[in-house]
């Protein structure tokens, strides 16, 4: 019988303790993996999402709020801009593309974004990727009450080309605030894995002139998405709008603003990581305590093995191997737990922001965490193994004559 066979037999003999300890290791490993992978992917995804624009122009407010509202379609709009502001910025020599957007309505919680559809179709939201209409659909006509749905919104709302709907006033769904206008779905965007997937695009004028909106602000917009000719233009416009002006804010560069957000909330993932480490330490302590306690009841078995010629180092090795295997099984299980946590978290993030996290994206922690957890388990087994190593043989081969 091999040593591994002996160890596996011992694990089976103490099955309950093996399962509980492995599960605690799995929980710790799953948490650590999830914190690291979700944090890094979310960071990359949010910082990488700029929807093809370098800057956002809005009313004087927080840059972060502008970006969240105009790029990620979350958060409330800080206020409106005059149409003239859009015309002015569009003519700025440093601007190559400017897209006005207006928000303020929703359909069952999914935000309606009014924009100029022809420009939207020309924007590369990611390198070499422009928004595409799924087969059977088309871009909306800016003169008509037509809508193009982001793929996620279409899927969640169950709307398809030809369906109609009434928008609701406000960014939060309130059944009593239905607008009278009827919009027809004329297209659905191909999935872009970007925030655009979870909004309903309608013509800018449609949103501006929706019944119940203040006619005085019928030409106002919520923000302007800007693509610059060259990065230096951003410095000049930042100076002109943010530092010298006091009416507007230009959020630029978009990725750095999002990176600052992650820096600001960095303490949160540090706390999560710390909690995961603590769970790992507790799990390792569980292995140590579990094995240490069983050493007491296994003294006789150890003495018998010694009487059969097993050397101390073999006894030490079998206990360490046992502990390593418990941690190894837990580590394998931690990948399952990580998968479950990731799927739930990714679904929530997609629902809230439209940003898609990829479960299959490689992360070094996917290999280092299981290895680390197995090593922690191995080290945790050394103390009970040392106790087994020191078990006196003669005293435990009962009875003595």
């Amino acid at each position: 019988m091999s040593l591994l066979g002996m160890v596996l037999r011992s694990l089976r003999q103490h099955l309950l303790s093996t399962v509980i300890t492995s599960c605690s290791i799995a929980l710790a490993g799953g948490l650590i993996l999830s914190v690291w992978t979700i944090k890094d992917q979310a960071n990359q995804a949010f910082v990488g999402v700029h929807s093809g624009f370098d800057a956002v122009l809005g009313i004087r407010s927080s840059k972060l709020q502008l970006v969240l509202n105009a790029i990620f379609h979350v958060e409330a709009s800080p206020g409106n801009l005059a149409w003239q502001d859009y015309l002015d910025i569009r003519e700025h020599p440093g601007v190559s593309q400017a897209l006005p957007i207006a928000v303020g309505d929703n359909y069952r919680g999914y935000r309606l974004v009014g924009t100029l559809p022809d420009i939207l179709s020309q924007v590369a939201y990611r390198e070499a990727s422009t928004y595409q209409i799924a087969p059977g659909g088309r871009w909306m006509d800016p003169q008509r009450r037509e809508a193009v749905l982001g793929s996620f919104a279409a899927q969640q709302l169950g709307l398809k080309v030809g369906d109609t709907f009434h928008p609701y006033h406000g960014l939060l769904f309130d059944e009593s605030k239905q607008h009278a206008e009827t919009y027809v779905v004329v297209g659905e965007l191909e999935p872009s894995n970007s925030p655009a997937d979870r909004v309903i695009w309608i013509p800018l004028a449609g949103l501006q002139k929706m019944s119940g909106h203040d006619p005085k602000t019928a030409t106002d917009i919520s923000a302007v998405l800007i693509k610059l000719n060259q990065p230096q233009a951003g410095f000049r416009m930042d100076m002109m709008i943010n530092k010298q002006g006091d009416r507007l804010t230009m959020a630029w560069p978009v990725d750095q603003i999002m990176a600052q957000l992650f820096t600001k909330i960095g303490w949160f993932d540090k706390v999560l990581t710390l909690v995961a480490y603590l769970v790992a330490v507790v799990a390792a302590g569980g292995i140590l305590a579990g094995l240490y306690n069983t050493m007491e009841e296994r003294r006789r078995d150890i003495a018998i093995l010694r009487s059969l010629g097993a050397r101390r180092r073999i006894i030490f090795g079998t206990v360490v191997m046992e502990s390593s295997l418990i941690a190894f099984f837990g580590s394998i299980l931690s990948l399952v737990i990580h998968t479950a946590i990731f799927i739930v978290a990714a679904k929530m993030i997609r629902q809230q922001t439209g940003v898609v996290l990829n479960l299959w994206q490689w992360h070094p922690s996917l290999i280092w965490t299981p290895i680390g957890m197995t090593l922690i388990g191995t080290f945790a087994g050394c103390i009970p193994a040392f106790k087994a190593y020191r078990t006196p043989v003669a005293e435990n081969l009962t009875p003595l004559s």
Partner: protein
Amino acid sequence: MGLLEIHQLEKGFFTPEGRHQKILDIRSFSMNSGQQLGLRGQSGSGKTTFLHMIAGIIQPDAGQILLDGHPMHALSEARRDQIRASTVGYIFQTFNLLAGFTCLENVHLGMRFGSQQNPERAVSLLEQVGLQDRMHYRPSQLSVGQQQRVAIARALANSPRLVLADEPTGNLDPSLAEEALSLIRTLCTENNAALLLVSHDQGILDQFQPCLDLREINRAGQGGGS
């Protein structure tokens, strides 16, 4: 040179009161290959300690133990373990089978730490002790007599030069004791292993010629150890 040579062997223990008490003081003891020897010893006379020292499980305070030419008194613990694994078979009064393993696995463990790894021999030994249909049973699923037979098979699994039997029939009723003793002696003969059997049962010891009394060779006389 005989299989086992012992000279000026001494062993003592500290009592709970802190007093050192010598329990074994054996001037000379020897056994030849294939010899079967009975050793009478009352409870507390130090006979288990004596066997443990021969097997290298514990070390003497003084003296020499030469087992198959190996100076057990002078070797490291690891080396003694190695020699025990390949040279000695041990039968205990309480059988000392590992509860989590089947009969066959218990016998495999008897050869696991020695130089010989022969799974077929384990099967053959269990057949010889009449447990061919119980190989995959756990010890708890066997009768007391069957458990002792597994212990006998395990003791011979590593083809030992010397089998040490410590009250091997102490937990068996008289008919089973006779059967077990006969089995041990037969298997030792067939496997060319010497047998040193210690017991306080006169009926068992009467079957051995020669049969020594530990009191006769132990100058420490009646001791308080084991």
